[in-house]
């Protein structure tokens, strides 16, 4: 059954490691929906969070193939557990003075924030799971989205588990 999987990959912070990981996905025919990379809790190691779609067999292959890379230390299927997944989006939307109160209403409801104001535009920052960001974007569309930038998902398992 096709499912969305969120996988965390702990890697050596080496030049080219992102290319090794993303290249593996590409040439083995695995899909990447989003990929984020940043430092981890340990110096010298980075954590990548990759969102991919496929069945369980494909996820098993992804995991095994990732482990074959020498720079990969650990692979965790976050979506197998209760997890917190978040992404951030910046949305620059048309906002004539007349439309602003309406937009601010949406921003407040979504617990988003206005982070910049132009004469005819607003930049909105929204943080949340993918569905929330999608919904926010849908609501902004009628005003006219000028520019949109999403970070991709970063995630962690809930609770005390590491």
């Amino acid at each position: 059954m096709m499912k969305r999987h969120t996988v965390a990959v702990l890697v050596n912070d080496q030049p080219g490691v992102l290319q090794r990981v993303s290249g593996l996905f590409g040439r083995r025919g695995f899909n990447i929906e989003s990929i984020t990379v940043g430092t981890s809790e340990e110096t010298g190691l980075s954590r990548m969070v990759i969102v991919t779609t496929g069945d369980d067999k494909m996820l098993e292959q992804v995991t095994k193939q990732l482990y074959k890379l020498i720079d990969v230390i650990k692979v965790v299927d976050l979506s197998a557990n209760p997890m917190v997944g978040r992404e951030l989006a910046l949305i620059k939307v048309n906002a004539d003075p007349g439309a602003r109160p309406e937009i601010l209403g949406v921003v407040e409801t979504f617990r988003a924030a206005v982070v910049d104001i132009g004469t005819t535009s607003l930049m909105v920052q929204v943080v949340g799971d993918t569905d929330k960001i999608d919904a926010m974007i849908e609501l902004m569309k009628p005003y006219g989205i000028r520019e949109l930038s999403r970070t991709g998902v970063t995630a962690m398992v809930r609770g005390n588990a590491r």
Partner: protein
Amino acid sequence: MVAQHATLRSKEEIMESLRKPEVITGSEILLRSLVLEDVECVFGYPGGAVLYIYDAMHGFSDFQHLLTRHEQGAIHAADGYARASGKVGVCIATSGPGATNLVTGIATAYMDSVPLVVITGNVATTLIGTDAFQEADITGITMPITKHSYLVRKAADLPRIIHEAFHIANTGRKGPVLIDIPKDVSAELALFEPVTEVSIRGYNPTVTPNKLQVDKMLKAITEAERPIVLAGGGVVYSGAHEELFEFIKKSGIPITTTLLGLGAFPSGEELWLGMPGMHGTYTANTSIQEADLLINIGARFDDRVTGKLSGFAPKAKIVHIDIDPAEIGKNVPTDIPIVGDVKSVLQMANKEVKYAEKADAWRAQLAASCKEKPYKYNDSEDELKPQWVIEMLYEETNGEAIVTTDVGQHQMWAAQYYKFNKPRSWVTSGGLGTMGFGFPSAIGAQMANQDRLVISINGDGGMQMCAQELAICAINNIPVKVVIINNQVLGMVRQWQELIYDNRYSHIDLSGSPDFVKLAEAYGVRGFRASNKEDARAVWQEAMNHPGPAVVEFVVRKHENVYPMVTQGSTIDQMLMGDTE
């Protein structure tokens, strides 16, 4: 028939002089580190970006360097050296075009899990990324076809990187490792301190298997009525041929060995069914389809072995033993996965394995089938048949030679008609099917086995892809016997065009090939030719009696096909048997 070499210092003398910490150049660190990794022979080709390394090699005699005539020759030779010896093959090339000329050879080694350390030069670190003269991002280019790679930034890192590279190449699932050294790094001075330990956090291959899984396999053997073992190159690479022999003798399970597994089990033994797959034996293929238990030992269920996957071994419970967990379940769903080194797995299994008692009828059935349907061909007294040539080579060498092949019909006939009884006697490009591999790989195999007879069997097509390496055989007196099975076409392509593309022969005619005897002689190598049986045996004996390298061309029947054949999309028991039935 021993190749001539420069006098080398004794190993102890070398090691003693190399271990002391000293400030030296990156190039000297590289050479010392290679010697400390027990490297005896490297194959290479100099150029601008490796000039410091070659300068350090001037007058250096602690290992031998063979100058090939093309980088492709160097890497295939290093590959042949590794396959025939079990040691790591090493080659050196310069940056840019030198490095990209290695790509085919790296991919060949990667597909067949051959341990190589490939050293390339690169432009100076200050020029990297500027499209400098002879710059190529070789670590980027080779990322999908190496087990790991390094771009060295500081000479001080070289001892660790080289030690890690050899460790990674020759442990776990083996494979090629690339070390790219910028020119300024090879010139940079650094303190050299030998590295003897290796610690790579993300790299811990599982060698010892899970006992519970092995027990499950042993139980399945006692229950099976129609068990079969499918053994592959992993048995050879792990040095587990004796353990495999013991396992087969104790369990009484019939065995088939893949193309890369030839020699892992003695071909003369009663339980051996031959090779499976596209050009496998009738018995090997039908037995897989009938089996109720299939134990895969160090093979990867390549599509040339399985045929149509959905119809492969339909009745069998599948056991898969492999050191690479990613191979298990990749192509064929596995009932009993066993991750571990084949040797360790078989040692554990051999302590308790019981004879498969319920399989008596099965063994008898397969033995009868082997007798009834061996490989066969219609021999001819008028034309030389390629199969006959291989059989003759087998007889004349008592099956004792190391045989390397190129790729195509002659490769399959060599696999079918030359019988292998020892591991590492068979060197062939299986996974990638690399034309041009056969001859240079024989040079490497000979360098690794100076006291053994090495025969390189080639087609007239593949021979023309690396024929220039005849020069290094002549110059270094490397006594390889080069066989050319000349049918004047790209035979395997012609066979497919005949059988699958309705006789539409498109661009396969190799007329205009050189006179191979004259070509050999032009390089200073003895050349022979034969086109009938009598001459064939006579010239072969003459070539064998010649102490140096020789090229022997056998002009064979043009329209000869390899049978049995499983066409793509068929299950492996749907074999075309040719006109011998």
